[in-house]
């Protein structure tokens, strides 16, 4: 991870030299950083990029790589607001035309992927190039269940990973995100998440996805779903609440969708029974809280789900979409304490995961199921808009 004296004197020449691409590399282990530098050297021609980082430089660094020091900050599993501020600041100094931010363990991205991300901004006039990772079907489940479908329905964006930990931006996009990041108070910098796709849609900038293949995804220091789900979902809900005037306007999602990439899922043998048991326990105990958030028809559907055996367990896509929408509306209305609200969502999310795993076990590709879920979110968007505007109409 980051050390106290990372930058050597031979980087002085890079301080103000111009470059096409500014690469901001977030704190990571020395071996990972070494791999990132090697891949960058292969992806870009010498002198066309500058690396801004706080990582300790490896001993055998190529002389062609120009590096500037950034202020020390703690390592994190996702991009932090300070990363966007630093990228904009150093990119401005070097007159960069593309701002590439690489998250932890970015050495698993190939040189071709890095080049493709930068080319999307440099050549294709894209403002925000977001990677499309090829992850195992049992990974990134919060993204598949909530982040992707909700972002797609609300902001009409088909970006598969709205909370990607690598991205490439144009100067104006970098300035906008730096402005948003600057508004985050220092006290909440450690936990704050930015939503670049939502910002790009709000600004009317062009967004596109770039296939980057597989990538090692860094995990939060606390892998407990209780904390991850509350943090990520709460942040997205807050962002959607802040942009309510934007997403309530009807938008047509882009029609073109890249072909689904199926990844081998033979490594996954998740404990569906345990997740279903967690849901059943919650169904028996949390009715009082759920009834404050969910309409009676959803509660009835959940009761029916709770009678299913683990092997046959499934949660209908439409039901899941309405549950997320109802929780989003309750988050906005502060029906109950927001911590309690997100805590009460966890068993429902586990139920969706159990159903998703059963769907995959039945032979249906994971991506097809996720696309069906996202489509259900799109179809039910009028329900969200109606409840957002007239929350008292509970049984609409």
């Amino acid at each position, binding site marked *: 991870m980051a050390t106290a004296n990372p930058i050597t004197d031979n980087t002085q020449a890079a301080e103000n030299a111009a470059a096409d691409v500014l690469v901001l590399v977030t704190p990571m282990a020395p071996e990972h950083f070494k791999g990132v530098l090697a891949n960058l050297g292969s992806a870009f021609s010498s002198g066309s990029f500058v690396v801004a980082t706080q990582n300790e430089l490896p001993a055998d660094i190529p002389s062609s790589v120009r590096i500037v020091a950034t202020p020390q900050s703690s390592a994190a599993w996702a991009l932090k607001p300070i990363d966007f501020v630093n990228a904009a600041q150093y990119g401005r100094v070097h007159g960069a035309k593309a701002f590439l931010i690489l998250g932890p363990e970015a050495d698993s991205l190939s040189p071709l992927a890095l080049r493709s991300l930068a080319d999307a901004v440099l050549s294709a006039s894209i403002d925000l190039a977001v990677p499309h990772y090829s992850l195992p079907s049992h990974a990134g489940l919060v993204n598949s269940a909530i982040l992707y479908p909700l972002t797609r329905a609300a902001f009409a964006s088909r970006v598969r990973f709205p909370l990607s930990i690598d991205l490439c931006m144009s100067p104006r996009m970098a300035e906008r995100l730096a402005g948003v990041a600057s508004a985050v108070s220092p*006290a*909440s910098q450690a936990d704050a998440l930015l939503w670049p796709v939502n910002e790009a849609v709000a600004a009317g900038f062009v967004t596109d996805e770039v296939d980057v293949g597989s990538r090692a995804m860094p995990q939060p220091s606390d892998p407990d779903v209780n904390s991850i789900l509350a943090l990520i979902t709460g942040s997205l809900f807050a962002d959607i609440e802040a942009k309510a005037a934007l997403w309530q306007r009807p938008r047509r999602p882009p029609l073109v969708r890249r072909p689904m990439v199926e990844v081998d899922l033979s490594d996954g043998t998740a404990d569906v029974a345990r997740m279903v048991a967690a849901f059943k326990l919650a169904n028996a105990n949390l009715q009082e809280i759920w009834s404050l958030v969910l309409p009676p028809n959803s509660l009835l559907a959940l009761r029916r789900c709770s009678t299913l055996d683990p092997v046959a367990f499934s949660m209908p896509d439409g039901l899941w979409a309405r549950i997320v929408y109802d929780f989003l509306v309750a988050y906005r209305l502060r029906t109950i304490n927001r911590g309690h609200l997100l805590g009460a969502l966890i068993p429902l999310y586990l139920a969706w995961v159990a159903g998703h795993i059963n769907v995959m076990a039945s032979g249906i590709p994971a991506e097809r199921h996720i696309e069906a879920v996202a489509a259900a979110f799109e179809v039910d968007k009028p329900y969200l808009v109606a409840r957002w505007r007239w929350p008292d109409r509970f049984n609409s």
Partner: protein
Amino acid sequence: MQNTLNNSMQQATQSITAIPGSSEDASIWHHMSEALNQSLYRVLTLLIAVLPGILAFFVALLVFATAGVLISWILRRCLSWAKFDARIAQKSGTDWAPASSPTEIVARASFWICVLLGLVIGVSAFDTSYATGAPLPISLLPYLTHAVGAALLLIAGVVVARFLARSVLISAVNAQLQYARILSLGVKWLVLVLTAAMVLDHLQVGGNIVELAFGILFGGIVLTLALAVGLGSRDLVSRSLESHVEHTGERTHIPDEVPTASPQIRHF
């Protein structure tokens, strides 16, 4: 006013004494009517003395409530204009999670502060007029301030009990504890019993009986919870001890019961 009252009472006495009957009956009637007259006189005098205070109380309450409505409206507009909610959200992150927005809370707080101020000023005016005008003490009046304090204690206790009960229930369910509801109810009743004891103590009702009853109830609930948790976690403790015996000298590892521990599932 007092002259009018005296006149009316004398007329009433004369009409009573004019009733025909024996001399003993007349004497009884006379004493009764005199006692009634004196009582009526005292109560009416007290009411007349207190009436301006009551009026002052309601006027003060009305004026300050109106001022509160006005101030809260101005505050709401100003804070909305200054994007107060967004600023607070930025500073506190996602931890700020009360049932209302910060602007709404500030506006409501300002209104209720004004109402409380009106209440204090009204009670003060009432108290002044009562102290000067009342020839007899009324034992219920000192209870008024205690009752207000007790009511506030009760409201705070119920709110805290509800919040803690929900927190415990959700955490216990997410930790897959089968006795989640019992735990939640136990916490809720612990806080409620504590609140009830504090309220009674504040009202100075019951004395030692309340303390004793509180001790017994509180101890009983804690014992019940301890038994519930202990019996429910018997298997976990057994496994832990067995593991400790098998790996003497090594760090005891208790299996994580949280469903997220499955290494195959990655939520992010």
